[in-house]
């Protein structure tokens, strides 16, 4: 009985994951590519959500690890001639180590200072990425020209890898829901000084989440780079990626498991519909959405889902 109860929150997500794993048998390349994009953003938004939604720390520099993942994977594949998946896993490990180094001093910042500090770091990383080859003489990033990767075989690989990362991120969020670690994080989010006075080691818990997110984000970046066959520092470290993650997590509902997926799906579809002709309109709409959600609908789409579900439960049968 006790074993079943602890697995219950996982049953629906597992079923969905199985369905998605079987999707390629039924759907065509366009749908699958769209799905891959949704998985990628869901993984990114979900990773951001771990630190921001559960621990309450607004990180505005997660794109750093996206870029690190992209470049580490590319360099390992092309210089060390390692296969893609091996490079990807190693890139995750590199991101983990860097996150430990960067996170330890940075997570000591609180509130808005943490947000600004991480943004400053991310922009520094972008500048460093652009200048690295010139500065150090070690050809790593290709400067503003970037790096070209070998063309990949097909789209199925990326579909499954992105799906896997999304599943891992979502699984982590689900596991946080009722776990000891999750309570600690939420205590930090609600009142970090009280949490500390009650025995919670703020830095240690936040660092754990920060490092975990870094790995997931790096895996996403590494896969995306190979998928596009091209990366450069301007795009791989671009603040716009952070902003997309933030908006999707917000729109979907901060601190919920479903939120990032809903937000990613919704916005990916909207941008798909608007196409490349209306990029600016799309972004203006996003800005309006952010304003609207923050002012009027802080629970996001997941909040609406919850309200509908609650109303249905409360209604007389």
């Amino acid at each position, binding site marked *: 009985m006790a074993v079943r109860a602890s697995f219950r929150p996982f049953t629906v997500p597992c079923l969905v994951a199985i369905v998605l794993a079987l999707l390629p048998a039924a759907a065509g390349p366009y749908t699958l590519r769209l799905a891959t994009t949704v998985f990628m953003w869901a993984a990114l938004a979900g990773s951001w959500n771990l630190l921001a939604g559960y621990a309450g720390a607004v990180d505005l520099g997660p794109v750093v690890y996206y870029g690190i993942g992209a470049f580490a994977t590319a360099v390992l594949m092309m210089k060390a001639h390692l296969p893609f998946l091996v490079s990807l896993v190693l890139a995750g490990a590199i991101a983990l180590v860097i996150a430990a180094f960067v996170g330890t001093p940075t997570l000591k910042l609180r509130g808005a200072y943490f947000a600004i500090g991480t943004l400053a770091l991310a922009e520094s990383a972008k500048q460093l990425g652009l*200048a690295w080859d010139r500065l150090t003489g070690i050809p790593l990033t290709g400067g503003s020209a970037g790096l070209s990767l070998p063309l990949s075989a097909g789209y199925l690989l990326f579909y499954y890898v992105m799906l896997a990362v999304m599943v891992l991120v979502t699984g982590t969020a689900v596991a946080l829901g009722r776990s000891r670690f999750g309570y600690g994080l939420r205590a930090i989010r609600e009142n970090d000084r009280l949490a500390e006075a009650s025995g919670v080691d703020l830095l240690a818990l936040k660092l754990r989440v920060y490092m975990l997110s870094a790995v997931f984000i790096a895996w996403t970046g590494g896969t995306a780079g190979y998928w596009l066959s091209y990366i450069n520092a301007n795009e791989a470290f671009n603040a716009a990626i952070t902003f997309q993650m933030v908006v999707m997590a*917000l729109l979907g509902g901060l601190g919920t498991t479903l939120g990032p997926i809903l937000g990613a799906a919704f916005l990916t579809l909207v941008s798909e519909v608007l196409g490349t002709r209306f990029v600016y309109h799309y972004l*203006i709409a996003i800005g309006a959405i952010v304003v609207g959600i923050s002012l009027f609908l802080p629970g996001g789409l997941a909040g609406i889902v919850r309200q509908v579900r609650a109303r249905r439960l409360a209604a007389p049968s």
Partner: protein
Amino acid sequence: MEQLIVLGQTVLNGVLQGGVYAAAAVGLSLIFGVSGILNAAHGELVMLGAFATYWLFKAYHVDALLTLPVAFALLFLLGYVLQHLLLNRTLGSPLLISLLVTFGISLILVNTALRLWSADYRMMTVPYLDRSLMVGPFILPLSRLAAAGAGVGMVAGLCWILQRTEVGRMIRATAQDWEMASLMGVNPRNIYALTFGLGSGISGVAGSLVAFYAPVEPNMGLTYTLFAFSVVVLGGMGYIPGVLWGGVALGIAQALTETYIEAGLSLLAAFFLLYLALRFMPAGIIGRGRME
């Protein structure tokens, strides 16, 4: 001797740049100090001011210096409306909410600008400022000198308004204790709108000054937001006069990087300086800043 001249010129460049940075940052500090709002769209206000001056100068042939009050008026209006309609609803909510709302506003502003004017870089040259003064061995480009002077002048003007006028007193009272101020007949919401307008106007004019000597493009906002944060953190968040040495510190740090390390790294230097300041000097160089 040669080395000293190079150093001197570098520091001078930094100081001139610092004057503009001070003006570009003071709006952020003012708004945060009075209403507790961290304006993520700050850089976009600078950008819009820059474009206002550019278009008035290029398309309508308005004298460059005369575009300044127009830019101020336009941005003041925008800021006032933004606070009144949107940001006043965030009062009392945690900092994150106002950060997010202003972030949304910044997205709207940047992409509207991109839609209207495309991402092209645009540069204007003011004919009567297009030469340099020679002071001893040092070169002082007139456009930069004028910009720095106007920038510092605006910061001084703001200090004067805050200290010596009725409106300034009301703003300071609201900043210290809005409940008390409202009991004395001040309407905090109007003051917040006025303050946001004032901060926006000054930021806009700072952008106009940038347009005198540097290219403008819609994406320049983020950089100026980060510059502004650097200046404000170094000078002390919420402490108005601090932007003067915060700006100069940033300007000199960048100038030194450009001269002695590499020109392309000045942004890196600025952003890293911001990070270091947050980590080791969160209350500013002289410790007058406050964050909570």
